[in-house]
Each structure stands twice: as structure tokens, then as C-alpha cells.
């Protein structure tokens, strides 16, 4: 009779003991699994919270967000735009406040205003709207506000709307655009000859007092840039939203490396920009999640020890009835190892179906944990069995005879 058959026969014919062992293991297993499930759920919740949390970031001049302090070189903020190096980590980027570039022809400047800073011109320049709703910068039209000095540069189309052509008209003060094709959205100018496409024709919707400046919504600035590759853009601040919070540490490292010193566009002096990640809440939750994870790491060995203890206790309880059997087989010539293996195999066969069922029913992560419980339980049982199996046979037989 080999060990497996011996064990199976013992299990089948000692139904009561087998059933008790199975029930004890099942209860322990379910208790520990439930506890583990609870910890997993908590961890999941925290991680979900961390995922849903929008972490925003701001890159600005250390001096503050002053819209007239437009000194961030283009190459710095281009890194954040859709084709930039940080794009994989960012879900949304907004250049904040105003961005200007010089219009040499008129010795003035074009200032692009982002939606958030639409009130910039109202704050810094008295504005007089001629034909617009109040929030002009949310308009889908190409709109702009001019200073009075530039009023002479505008022309009026057949509908009576005033337009300014950023790309073309300042090249020829004499003629300006002659015709606007509404269907193609292009201007033609005989004076300019080959120039047929003028994508940034801005409808003038207001005037302000002051210098020679054109104010337009930021979204049109990129169009201007596309048409004027030599154009130098600068910004003083931008904001972004992190795409994947898991990658926040990586992004932070990259940012801190890149933004230690950025060359100023107009000077050779090194210019430092501040990168502020608004991740206080995220970090707080991360800390909480980490504490929870640490707690789990701390509790796990305790759970395994509990399973091991249960294995030890169960064997100790059952060994009272098995002492006689083990002493008998050892006195017949079975080795201590053989005797121990007979017992151990039984507990292994008890753990196996429970763990297999767990593997089939629950998720893989939990079934792996269940496997560890099983191993801990078997280890506990093994310790107990081996201690008994190595009791001197003479003493075992003496106890047997008593």
C-alpha cells in the first residue's frame, strides 16, 4: 500500500476527522480570504480615487503670472504642446494669459489671449466693443480688438464688417485685400500678386485705446505661427492636466530636470521657470494608499502566520488520535519521514480542493493569496507533524502502551 493509497484510505475511512479538517481549513481559508478581499477592495478604492483625481500643473515665471511679463521662450512651452516631449504625460495643455509677438511692419504687437484671460484687455485697457457679445474670446469666429492707432488699417467688406488681415495687409499699405471669397474663405489681392490664402483674417469687434496692439484669442495665434515660421512666440505661463497619475513621479523628474534653467529667448542669461504641480491632494491620497499598502504588507505575514498556526493547532488536536497509528507504523519499520509524509499528504489533499475551487471562483490575485494560505497551513501542519514524527520511537511506544 503506497503512501497515497494509505492516505486516501485513511481519509475515506476516517470520515469524521477528514471532515473536521476540511471544515477547519475552509473556515480559516474563508476568513483570511475575506480579510484579504477587504484589504484589496480598500486598496482598489484608493487607487481608483487616485486615478480619477485631476492633477494640474502650472509652469510660470518665478516672478509670478503677470500677463505683461511674457518671457517664456517658445521652445520651453512647445515641449508641452501636442507634439512636445511631455505630450504622452499630459491630457490637456493650456497656455495661460497673454502671448505676444512683434509686428515689425507697424511697430506694434499682436497679443493672443487665452480664454481664461479674456478679461485681460478689459482689466488693462478700456475696451469699446462695436459688434460682439460680451465674452468675445469664446467666439468661434476669427475676431480681434484693435487699438485706435490701427483703425486705419482695417477695411470693410460688402456686409459692412470691419476686417484686419494679419498676414498680408501690412505688407502693402497701399491696396490691402481686394476681395474676400466667402465660399473658400480666402482673400485675393492683385497688389500682392501670388498671395491668395490669408487664413487669419480677423473680424474687428472692438477697439481699445493705447499702443499699436492687436488683441486676438489665443487659438488663432497658432494659425498665425503656421503662416509665419519666423515668428517668435513667447508665453509667461501655461497649465496642464496630467494624463496618468501613475506616471506623475516620472513627469515630475523630467520637469525638474528640464526646468532647472531655460535660456531666455532674448538674453544669454539663464532663466529659471517654476513648475508647480498641484498634487497636494493627490499626494495626500497617495500617502493614505501607501499607508494602506504598508499595512497590508505588515498584515500579510500575520495572516500567513495565522494560517500556519491553524495548521499547527489542527494537527496537534488530531495527532492525539493519530499518535497510536504513527507509533504503530514506525514500530513496524516505517521511517519517521514516511510516517510524517502519510499525515502531511492528508492535509495537502484537504487544502488542494479548497484552493482549486478558489482558483476557479475568484480572481487570480486572490487565488494566489489563497495558495499562500494553503502553503502556510501545510507548513504549520508539517512543523507539527515533523516534531511528532521525530519523537523517539521508544517514547511513542511507551505512550502507546499506556
Amino acid at each position, binding site marked *: *500500500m503506497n503512501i497515497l493509497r494509505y492516505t486516501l484510505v485513511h481519509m475515506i475511512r476516517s470520515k469524521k476527522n477528514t471532515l473536521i479538517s476540511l471544515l477547519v481549513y475552509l473556515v480559516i481559508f474563508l476568513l483570511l480570504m475575506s480579510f484579504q478581499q477587504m484589504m484589496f477592495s480598500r486598496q482598489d478604492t484608493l487607487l481608483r480615487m487616485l486615478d480619477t483625481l485631476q492633477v494640474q500643473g502650472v509652469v510660470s515665471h518665478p516672478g509670478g503670472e503677470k500677463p505683461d511679463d511674457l518671457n517664456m521662450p517658445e521652445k520651453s512651452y512647445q515641449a508641452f504642446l501636442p507634439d512636445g516631449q511631455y505630450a504622452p504625460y499630459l491630457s490637456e495643455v493650456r497656455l495661460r494669459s497673454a502671448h505676444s509677438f512683434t509686428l515689425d511692419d507697424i511697430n506694434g504687437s499682436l497679443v493672443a489671449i487665452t480664454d481664461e484671460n479674456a478679461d485681460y484687455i478689459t482689466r488693462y485697457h478700456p475696451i469699446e466693443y462695436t459688434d460682439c457679445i460680451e465674452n468675445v474670446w469664446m467666439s468661434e469666429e476669427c475676431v480681434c480688438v484693435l487699438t485706435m492707432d490701427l483703425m486705419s488699417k482695417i477695411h470693410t467688406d460688402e456686409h459692412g464688417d470691419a476686417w484686419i488681415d494679419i498676414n498680408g495687409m501690412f505688407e502693402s499699405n497701399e491696396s490691402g485685400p481686394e476681395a474676400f471669397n466667402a465660399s473658400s474663405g480666402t482673400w485675393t489681392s492683385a497688389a500682392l500678386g501670388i498671395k491668395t490664402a490669408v487664413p487669419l483674417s480677423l473680424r474687428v469687434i472692438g477697439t481699445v485705446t493705447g499702443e499699436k496692439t492687436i488683441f486676438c484669442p489665443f487659438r488663432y495665434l497658432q494659425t498665425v505661427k503656421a503662416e509665419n515660421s519666423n515668428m517668435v512666440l513667447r508665453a509667461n505661463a501655461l497649465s496642464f492636466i496630467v494624463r496618468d497619475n501613475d506616471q506623475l513621479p516620472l513627469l515630475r523628474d523630467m520637469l525638474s530636470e528640464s526646468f532647472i534653467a531655460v535660456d531666455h529667448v532674448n538674453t544669454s542669461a539663464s532663466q529659471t521657470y517654476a513648475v508647480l504641480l498641484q498634487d497636494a491632494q493627490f499626494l495626500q491620497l497617495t500617502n493614505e494608499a501607501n499607508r494602506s499598502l504598508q499595512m497590508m504588507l505588515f498584515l500579510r505575514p500575520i495572516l500567513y502566520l495565522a494560517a500556519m498556526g491553524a495548521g499547527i493547532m489542527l494537527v496537534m488536536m488530531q495527532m492525539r488520535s493519530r499518535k497510536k497509528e504513527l507509533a504503530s507504523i514506525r514500530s513496524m519499520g516505517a521511517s519517521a519521514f514516511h510516517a510524517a509524509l502519510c499525515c502531511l499528504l492528508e492535509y495537502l489533499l484537504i487544502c488542494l480542493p479548497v484552493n482549486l475551487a478558489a482558483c476557479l471562483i475568484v480572481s487570480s490575485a486572490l487565488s494566489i493569496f489563497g495558495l499562500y494560505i494553503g502553503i502556510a497551513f501545510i507548513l504549520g501542519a508539517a512543523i507539527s507533524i515533523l516534531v511528532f514524527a521525530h519523537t523517539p*520511537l521508544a517514547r511513542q*511506544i511507551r505512550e*502507546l*502502551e499506556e
Partner: protein
Amino acid sequence: MIELRNVSYSYIGKNVRVDAVKSISCHFEKGKFYALMGPSGSGKSTLMQLINALVQPTQGSILYQGKPIETFRPNEYRLKYVSLIHQNFCLLPFLNVLENVLYPTSLLKINKQEARIQAIKQLETLGLDATYHKRMPSMLSGGEQQRVAIARAMCTGAPVLTADEPTGNLDSENARHIASIFSHLAHEEKKTIIMVTHDPEMAKQADIVLHLKDGKLLLNPSDM
């Protein structure tokens, strides 16, 4: 077959050294039935433990067919050469009669079919026919259980059978029966039987009776 040379055995019990066996020398021959007698604490059971290699002598040596028994692996020695029969039979309660008898043969890794034939033969020799084979130990009387235990000890073909008070739990009729079986095994099957007993009637059936007192072998039983 088995020779004891100046064998002593001491152990520490409750901070006191106990000399359980003191310089015993004797020889157990093949085909003889020995009875070990003596009062409680005389060292009979310790001597049996020494012969079965359950404990090691603190002095002297025990030889099996001229070889010190320390040279054998203890479990192999108990399995192949010296079988032990217990007072309370020690049958495995979840195995039936035939399975109990066959169990030691599974440790020997001998041919299963041959072992089965041998086991059935041993059981029949001891008066346990096929109707007993499937019975569980709990369904047997004490005498029957002891006969199964003897069959089990016989089944491995060990030349020496040791029995520690094998009739202690049996009535006199069964005790006589067991004694006659031992006598038969010694004389017909040339086994060496060493039996510890308190019962003078049992001892009478032995070829040689050894008396122990205070751990010593008495040359003159009248000294008891």
C-alpha cells in the same frame, strides 16, 4: 541469532539516573522460544526496546547474526529482522485485517501478489480464514486482534519476533492459544521468539525462561 554483550542502559528520570539494565549478556538462538519474566521495573521492557533498536545501549553491544545492530538502519532492522508485537495489538483501525497484515510488506517493496498470498497463508495458519479478511479490527475479539498482529509481524519474514506482554489484554484461553502459536512458530518455522510476560503459565510454554530483577539477569531464578 541475537547476542547481548554486557549491555547496560541508563536514563535520567526526574534528575535521578536510573540504571534500567545492568551488564546483561545473553544469547537468543534461532528456533527457540524465550520468555522474559520479572517484576515491574526489572528492565524487561527496556531490554525489549534494546533488542528492537528502539533505544541504544549506554554500554555494551547487541549483535544480530554477529553484526552490531547499530550498523543496520533502525527502521530496516525492525522491518526485516526483528518484528515487534505489542500488548495492545496496535492494529491500524482504518485498515481491514488483510490490509493490516499487508501493510509492512508495502514498506518492503516486495511483489504485491506474493505478499498477498503470504499474508493469507499466515492468517490461515493462525486460524483466521477468508471471512476475516475484510473485517475491521474493531469487529474482532482481543485474541483475534493479537493473532492478526502476529500475522502482520510474520508477514515480512523477520527471523526474530519480540512480543511485549502479548497476552496482557487477553483471557487465559486466548493467552494459551497465543503461547501455543509462538511455540509453533519457534519450533516449526524456526523463528526466534522473545516474549515478555508476567504470566508463569505463559512462560511455561517457552523453551527458555530468563528472569530479570533490578536490571540484572538472574542466573538462579530462585533468587527472585
